């Protein structure tokens, strides 16, 4: 048994890295997809819900009102490219490549996107959009919870770290 397996403060998740949120306010590696929300460049009230599935690279992009994205006809639209790019900033390109099961010698956002595009992935329907959007709203709701000055000893299991992805 290694020390890591027998450590109370073993580090399981690498910390997120800083990135600008203006264009892509939300991205996550979840449900077997890289998925997230991309702000519309022209309408501040509109966002696109975009996703790419691991292994098949099946992609989908539609607005929060469930209208299909005009750019995602048979190929990755700019929203999806932006999503992949920001995901590599937040989680590190290696982790994103591993999650999507993209094999490239030196993962970068561009290499990951190009490798996936080259397989001519199919366009999925937008059934996942609703759950991705609700994940985004759940994420935003964390801004609304109140701070508390009562002790929370359980956070002793979660030390801060300088490690980068």
């Amino acid at each position, binding site marked *: 048994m290694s020390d890591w397996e027998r450590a109370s403060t073993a580090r399981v998740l690498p910390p997120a890295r800083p990135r600008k949120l203006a264009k892509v306010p*939300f991205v996550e590696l979840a449900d077997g997809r890289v998925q997230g929300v991309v702000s519309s460049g022209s309408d501040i009230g509109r966002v696109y819900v975009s996703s790419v599935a691991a292994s098949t690279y099946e992609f989908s992009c539609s607005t929060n009102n469930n209208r299909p994205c005009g750019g995602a006809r048979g190929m990755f639209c700019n929203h999806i490219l932006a999503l992949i790019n920001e995901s590599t900033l937040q989680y590190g390109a290696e982790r994103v490549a591993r999650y999507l099961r993209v094999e490239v010698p030196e993962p970068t956002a561009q290499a990951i996107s190009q490798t996936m595009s080259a397989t001519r992935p199919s366009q999925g329907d937008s059934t996942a959009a609703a759950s991705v959007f609700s994940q985004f709203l759940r994420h935003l709701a964390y801004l609304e919870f*109140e701070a508390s*000055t009562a002790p*929370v000893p359980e956070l002793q299991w979660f030390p801060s770290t300088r490690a980068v992805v």
Partner: protein
Amino acid sequence: MVPVDQGGGLMRIDLLTDPIAGLDEALAVVDGFDDVLVAGLLRPQKIAGLTELADAVAGSPLAARVAEAAEKTAAGAAGEEHFVSLAAARIAVFGSVHDAVFERLAEATGRPQGEDSTRQASAAESPNLLAAARSWLSDLARAGWQGIDHDLISGSAQVISALLAEPSLRRLAVLLDGFAAELAASCPGAALERVPVRRWGDLWSRAMLLTLHHETSATSTVTGRLLPLGVDLLEHSTAAQAQVHAVFEPEDGTAPRLVRANVTVPKPDTIIGAGIWQLLRPHLSLLTAISEGRSMDLADMPVTAEGDLLWQDEHARLGEPADAFSTARVALPKAVTPVVAPLDRHPVRIAVPVFLEGYDIEGDEDEVSFTFAGNRLPVDTDRIPAAGPLTPKAVASSGACIGLIRWDGGFRLQPLAVETTVRKKTTAVHAGAWAGGTTDKAGVKAEKAATDAAAVLRERAGRLLRK
């Protein structure tokens, strides 16, 4: 050999490297049970891990319950209440580990220890919510770490959202939230190459216990002077806590004591670094005092018997300038260490403030140890928050250090502040110096980026959240 007492300030580092009697045996019991959790409690294969856990608490009031739980679980016929008993037994064994480690530290610091106080069991609020959490934790234990999948883990999302919305259940909420995120990122469990067995056993058993009634410790109020030693930052992707360690000098002239002031806030995972200080800062004026190098004067501030100030800004005002290193040299050696509530006794929560100097340095900024007459104390530089001026390099060239002694399989030092020599002048560098804001060039840049990130999320929330 370091003298036992030379002005009360010297620590006996040699005691931290001596073996602790019974420790390996206690940990072996926990390890055995943790191995059972890997494959799950539905139809456990390694039954020895269950019976040894029951044997370990055979002399305690838990004996009968845990023996029954071990038997039922081994037979594949256990229910929720049995899992609760097993979790309680695991926590009890770790309680004994905590006590042995804590006692050794008390000996090493030579500082006075506080007396135990009474506690009251309080009725559980939101029993349905707690039952839902317990039910999910039971399903998790049945599946085992190798049996986790996306459906099982996402089943916790609703419970966690509901718990977070209830401030009195914050402890369980932030614990489950951080735990579930780790589990989700580790699905499917069948494909895991290695499992953080002790950690997940800790988190599971702690969460299980928090779904039961909880004890509230006696609170009183204090008036006097608060002298900060340093700031510890704790965080997972969606919660953060700043914990200030300080010496409190009562106005009535009674003995000074060690206290902590805490502030915790849930957060979106993209708020990090300086952004965390920005979220915490408005709720704890003490963070501002620390950045300004000041003490605070407290008047009727509530405090628990465990030494946690239940901070309210209206009971504190900015005091005289106070140097943390003077506090550490002069006030800390006489400060009374508060007791730890029985259910909170786990070695991971040990964070004993110490002042160290006169050490030699081994290694470099990647792996630093302080040595004292041949006794080595590893330094955990990874815990220094990135949003602050203290760096591993500064620690590796320091001459004096304020830190927290921690234990996770062995003693380690978490630096909170160091004194280093810059251009022949002794300078103090604090890990939490940016907590209350900063004029440091790198700090200002980090603050600006964090402000922008938070503004984007707030704008998006304002536009989309209430539609």
